[in-house]
C-alpha cells in the first residue's frame, strides 16, 4: 500500500512565524502536490512538483513556497504565517495519474 505521511498533524503557530509542513511518500512517485482544504471551497492546489528540485505554482501559491530536495519528500513552507492560512493542508502523490493518494492532513491554526 502507498503510504503518504504528513509528520505534523496538528499545529498552532503565531502570526509571522515560519512554518514547515513535511510530506514523505514511500512509493517512488514522481508527482507530489500540496492542497489546502477550507469549508465550502473544496481542495485548492497550492504547489506541485513533477521531479526533484522542480516546482510549479498551483491555483493559490501566494504566501507559500515549497522544497523538493529528495524524490520522496515535499515540503510546504509558510514564510510568515498569517491567520488566513489557518486551514487543513493535504499532501498527495501519484506516478501514473490513475490514482492519487492523499496523506492524513495537517491541521494548522495561526493565532
Amino acid at each position, binding site marked *: 500500500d502507498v503510504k503518504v505521511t504528513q509528520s505534523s498533524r496538528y499545529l498552532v503557530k503565531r502570526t509571522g512565524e515560519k512554518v514547515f509542513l513535511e510530506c514523505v511518500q514511500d512509493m517512488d512517485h514522481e*508527482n507530489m*502536490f500540496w*492542497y489546502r482544504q477550507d469549508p*465550502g*471551497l*473544496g*481542495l*485548492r*492546489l497550492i504547489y*506541485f512538483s*513533477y521531479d526533484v528540485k522542480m516546482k510549479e505554482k*498551483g*491555483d493559490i501559491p501566494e504566501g507559500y513556497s515549497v522544497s523538493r530536495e529528495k524524490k520522496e519528500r515535499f515540503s510546504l513552507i509558510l514564510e510568515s504565517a498569517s491567520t488566513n492560512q489557518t486551514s487543513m493542508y*493535504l499532501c498527495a502523490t*501519484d506516478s501514473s*495519474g*490513475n*490514482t*492519487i*493518494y*492523499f*496523506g*492524513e*492532513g495537517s491541521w494548522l491554526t495561526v493565532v
Partner: protein
Amino acid sequence: ELKVEQNPLFLSMQEGKNYTIYCNYSTTSDRLYWYRQDPGKSLESLFVLLSNGAVKQEGRLMASLDTKARLSTLHITAAVHDLSATYFCAVDHKTSGSRLTFGEGTQLTVNP
C-alpha cells in the same frame, strides 16, 4: 480556467432511498475522480473514470462520465447510514498531467 461544480452541496436522505450527485466541469478533460471524506479524515479514492461513457460500480455507489456533456454522476442506491460522508469530484487538467481541480464537495447525511 477549469471550474468544477457539484450539486447538491448538502444532501439529507433516508436509508433505502436512491439519489444522484452531479459534477459539472467547464473545460475539456477525460479523467475524473470521485473521493469520499469522513469528518477529520483524509480523502479516500472511490473511482477513477478515464474515458467517455465510463461507468464504475462499487457496492451501493455507481459513477459515470459523459465527457461531451462535461458531466459526471455519482448514484447512490438504497442508501445506508455508513455512506454518510462528504463526496468530492475532481477533474484532471488535460494539459498538466495529474493536476486536479476539485468541486466544493457534497455533504451527504443518511438518516435511519
